[in-house]
């Protein structure tokens, strides 16, 4: 009988630097499990973002390249075009993907690059210390929105999965969360599916993951999960937004 809980091969032995209650660790694990189950670890290149997950390469055991802020989809394009046999994924946060890297993500998706994008949406800039992100909720406090996000000045939070689903080029676009065990299971399936589409050379895929940042939100881990469920999920609705079969 196998072990009920074992460490994926694609996960290194390093302890993560993430804060208590941060969901990066969960998503790292899901990515590692998907890579293991598909047997693609030795053909995979990840793109580490600028953001809290910049050192993802310490935790996931495959080749990595480190991008500048927002440019991961362009780097992934460069790798995938010259080495279509490699499995290429980016792992990006909301400041990275939805703000400074908006151009790169939209165009990579629109060209239908056969890459996998894992998008961590925790409604705040983590790395730089809790500044407002494009995904920050109305009224949510941030160090650059001390009175809470004023939508009259800064607009409404961007729903990336919804936006990406408007791109005509076929692709897989889904929004998942890791706030509860059953959500984690679904998210895992989505990540695996996203890699599978790449393996089959089917399409670009985009997995948005609604996540937490207790440290910058100023909440205990438990309260952060609760807040995410009550505040983020009604606005960031979970589910598949587009599949290649729709096309």
């Amino acid at each position, binding site marked *: 009988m196998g072990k009920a809980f074992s460490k994926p091969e694609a996960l290194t032995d390093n302890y993560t630097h993430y804060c208590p209650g941060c969901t990066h660790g969960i998503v790292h694990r899901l990515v590692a499990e998907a890579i293991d189950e598909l047997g693609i*670890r030795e053909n995979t290149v990840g793109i580490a973002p600028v953001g809290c997950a910049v050192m993802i390469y310490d935790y996931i055991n495959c080749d990595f*390249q*480190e*991008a500048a802020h927002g*440019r991961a989809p362009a780097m992934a*394009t*460069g790798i995938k075009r010259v080495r279509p046999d*490699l499995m290429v994924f980016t792992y990006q946060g909301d400041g990275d993907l939805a703000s400074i890297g908006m151009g790169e993500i939209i165009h990579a998706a629109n*060209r239908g690059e056969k890459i996998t994008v894992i998008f961590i949406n925790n409604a705040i800039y983590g790395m730089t210390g809790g500044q407002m992100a494009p995904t920050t909720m109305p009224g949510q406090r941030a160090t650059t929105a001390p009175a809470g996000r004023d939508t009259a000045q800064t607009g409404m939070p961007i729903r990336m999965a919804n936006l990406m689903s408007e791109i005509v080029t076929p692709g897989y676009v889904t929004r998942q969360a890791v706030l509860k065990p059953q959500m984690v299971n679904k998210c895992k399936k989505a990540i695996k599916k996203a890699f599978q589409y790449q393996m089959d050379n089917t399409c670009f895929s985009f997995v948005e993951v609604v996540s937490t940042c207790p440290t910058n939100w100023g909440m205990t881990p438990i309260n952060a999960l609760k807040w995410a469920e009550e505040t983020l999920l009604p606005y960031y609705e979970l589910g598949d937004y587009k599949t290649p079969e729709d096309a």
Partner: protein
Amino acid sequence: MAKVLMKGNEAIGEAAIRAGCLNYFAYPITPQSEVAEYLSKRLPEVGGVFLQGESEVAVGYMLFGASGAGERVMTTSSSPGISLMSEAISYIAGAECPAVFVNIMRGGPGLGGILPSQGDYFQATKGGGHGDYHLLVLAPDGVQEAVEMTMQAFGLAEKYRNPVMVMGDGMIGQMMEPVEFPDDLKTEPTNKDDWASNGMSTRKSKKKNLVKSLFLDPAELNQHNLNLKAKYEQMKKEDVQYELYNADGDYQILIASYGTMSRVCRTAIDMLKAEGIEAAMFRPKTLFPFPEKQVHDAALKETCKCVISIEMSMGQMVEDVQRCVMGKKPVEFYGECGGEIPSPEKIMEIVKELIG
């Protein structure tokens, strides 16, 4: 191979293919768009990768990705486009990846104009992006040299694991000259298995490769920069290229000039000679590493009264010339950068004024 008549831009594109670079990413900008147009036809014929990126910013990172995955890759652009790529150039230099950038310079600053210029000398040789890094910069004076330098660039980029820039100007990009593609300039790609993120399965060692420029430990970052500096010092020792023209006789003046401008100076020197005036030319073919000793020695010739740097800029290379001549001879400057290239007659007039 027989000579063919080609536009500089087309020839650069073909040279990349002949050098074994089958990956090209670019964004259109005048006066170099013909490179992309040419390669969009040619690369599919040879099974290569052609992609027009959404911006020069993205293109810079497409190069970074491709290069980090261990493949030869090139882009071409012109001044404002190179500014946008400078972020990626800094990252590529920081992560020690080889990649070839071609800058067909146009007038600046800002939108400037589409006419030829040499206004990006500082940008290319003194930085452009952030941090302590250097590009190896090759400056051709015509279409044939643009071909040769483009071909050399890939080997140099791999030798140093550093971005290399071929820096021409609009005139070199737009003019047609006969060219040959020398087979002996093609280098075999180096084995990149010990550093490139090209997938473990293709390598003997199953250690993961990281292509990165982040060093959190101050001592480690300092050491990284020392290693980079050692590479730049090695470039200065091993890969300086230059040409001296009409320098065997007793010249009264040394003209420092590169690229298109040097072609005009060459004609001016011939015309001066016909009038009995001896002028020599020092032409750096590598702008970084700059031929420091060579310009110094040429300036120190006894008969040489002064040195003048003539550029299609407001005075950029002249600072390197001054630095190397170390105050031992007067160093003058003449430049125009509106897009009209100074004529040989104008150069003659300036030289005559200087040497009285």
